[in-house]
């Protein structure tokens, strides 16, 4: 038995390949940065100035942290959908992002057709259920027992299909989320703290509250209901669950439907903050570092990971981003996650990886 987390790290620099890679990277980085940065006060700009700014304008810091918190909650919601499915079926569900878009588009599309808002929500839930059944029947059942990467690819197939299907049905134009009709608050709440003005969007507060409620509800569902117990059993071991008479097919439908509900709520929240479009699919890629940070199998991990990534990337973008040209939000999350992974390869809350020969 060997646990990769406890093995001593090999001496990386002794390897000629590593040296070669480092030298190439150093040359490229030096050439690229040398042209851009005035190196005389780099140290000051990286290690001193941002913290000075934080102390001097605490209201800005609070505002940034709040924004990070909110986007972190939304990343966590997307990650939650991934985790649910990964736990129950071992499928790395790449389609979660497009499911969010698809659910939100269905809701808005139905409303535009004249369906009352809350009826539209119910019908959308029905659509997500139908989707879950279809995916289980058409994709998962024939592919049972295949290697993980094949199932992963199959969810890519689902993604492509849903992109085409969604665009064909609802068109590719961004749509307005029906936030008002669902009695979601709007406007901003201005707080006087720390000698400055911090403005909190009401929809963000609502998103945080609803997300917390949903996570609590999911936890209760897993802990106290019969189906929840069955889900946890399947997550522990497919074979053992089958042997005590739990129907895997049924569980998969339920899990995908649960992920569909999470997707719908995420879609409503995210849609209310900006608009409903296929760009959300790219945002869903942001949930991936959250996943590896928190661990694929841990619901608390998804939440904590989401918050760390959300706050980390907003702080990084705001205080350090301008130093290297801005826009670092697109990759900073991955590097934060990588940093954590190098110390805990299974994520913060993931199951310990034990390998046996």
């Amino acid at each position: 038995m060997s646990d990769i987390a406890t093995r001593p790290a090999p001496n990386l620099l002794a390897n000629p390949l590593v040296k070669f890679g480092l030298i190439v990277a150093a040359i490229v980085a030096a050439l690229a940065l040398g042209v851009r940065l005035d190196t005389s006060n780099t140290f000051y700009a990286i290690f001193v100035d941002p913290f000075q700014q934080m102390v001097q304008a605490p209201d800005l810091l609070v505002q940034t942290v709040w924004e990070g918190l909110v986007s972190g909650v939304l990343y966590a919601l997307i990650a939650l959908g991934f985790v649910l499915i990964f736990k129950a079926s071992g499928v790395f569900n790449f389609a979660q992002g497009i499911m969010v878009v698809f659910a939100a588009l269905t809701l808005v599309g139905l409303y535009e057709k004249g369906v009352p808002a809350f009826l539209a929500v119910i019908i959308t839930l029905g659509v997500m259920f139908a989707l879950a059944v279809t995916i289980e029947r058409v994709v998962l059942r024939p592919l049972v027992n295949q290697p993980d990467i094949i199932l992963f690819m199959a969810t890519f197939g689902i993604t492509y299909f849903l992109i085409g299907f969604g665009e064909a049905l609802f068109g590719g134009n961004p749509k307005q989320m029906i936030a008002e009709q669902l009695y979601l608050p709007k406007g901003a709440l201005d707080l006087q703290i720390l000698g400055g003005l911090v403005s909190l969007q009401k929809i963000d507060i609502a998103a945080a509250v609803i997300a917390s409620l949903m996570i609590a509800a999911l936890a209760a569902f897993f802990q106290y209901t019969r189906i929840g117990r069955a889900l946890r059993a399947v997550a522990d071991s497919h074979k053992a669950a089958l042997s005590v008479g739990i129907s895997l097919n049924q569980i998969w439908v339920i899990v995908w439907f649960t992920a569909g509900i999470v997707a719908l709520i995420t879609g409503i929240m995210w849609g209310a903050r900006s608009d409903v479009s296929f760009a959300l699919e790219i945002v869903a890629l942001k949930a991936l570092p959250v996943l590896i940070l928190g661990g694929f199998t841990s619901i608390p991990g998804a939440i904590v990971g989401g918050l760390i990534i959300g706050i980390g990337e907003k702080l990084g973008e705001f205080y350090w981003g301008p130093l290297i040209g801005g826009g670092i939000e697109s990759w900073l999350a991955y590097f934060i996650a990588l940093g954590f992974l190098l110390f805990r390869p299974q994520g913060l809350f993931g199951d310990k990886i034990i390998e046996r020969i």
Partner: protein
Amino acid sequence: MLYREAGQYKSSYASDMAVFPLKEDRIGIAVILAIALVAIPFLGSDFFIASVMIPFLVFSLAAIGLNILTGYTGLISLGTAAFMGVGAYSCYKLTTLFPGVNIIVLILLSGLFSAGIGVLFGLPSLRIKGFYLAVATLAAQFFLQWAFVRVPWLFNYNASGAIEVPQRTLFDIPLTGAAATPETRYFVCLGLVVVLTWFASNIVHGKLGRSWMAVRDMDIAAELMGIKLLNAKLMAFAVSSYFCGVAGAMMIFLWYGGGEAADVFSIRLSFNILFMVIIGGLGSLIGSFFGAAFLSILPTALKFGLPALGIPIQGAAAEHVTFMLVGALIITFLIVEPHGLARLWQIGKQKLRTWPFPY
């Protein structure tokens, strides 16, 4: 009857270790090369060569690169497009700095830069495995894509931010740039792909390839057998990125002829190449070609084939249908043959061996 090894005796080690031990295989590969070298350039239209064959060759090379990493070594990577981008940009920088050097040499050299960057982003693979690693390679994808846009040194401070492919010649025949004919570019692509495939075939059948496969099957067991994981995994990243880098340089210089590379080398391209590898068959060089053919030709075929069949769709609708069909086909293929087109090819060959009296 037509295809069997009966009666073909191997009397030396060299013939036993040959890549194509069967006479029929050698004839087959000669026919394919003859078609590629003679029939396609002379019979194919410019459109066919430029928008079917060249993309096919470029994607094949990229798919071989990813197959070395994912299929042979078992490390899933979602950063292929970024490594291709590194190849394209290094080729651009190299040809700007050394305009006198032949462009083919530079395309081959630019792969080395990609290999270096690949090794760097391959370092986490020593501690992280499986899907964790797949997500970690996305760091390479997004970071490098960001760098392609934000570091103006890479695109020579062009106002457009795009790679502008200069004209480069060999024996006064333009190879790149606007003046190069599709046939010339096709021949260059074909030559590079054939040589590099031969190279890859030798690597994966040799000591290195065997150690990769041992790592893929179980890395701890491989380590116990004396394979250095650090070297094997980083070498896989290096070789894989080299192939991807050359493919990327070919893509910009011989196919696109310039362009906003940050858009070209997006995450969607990474996914597409992963599809090619999986649909073609993990751990199979010929599968890479099958996968590339299937996925690079499919959208073009659907775009022009459906109207020809009398199904009238255009513009946006066609794109949606293409997306849906590609998605559905991927799922269908995975269900029908999870081991990819290469497995179908093997089954077909086995059937031929026993034909007409199967037992």
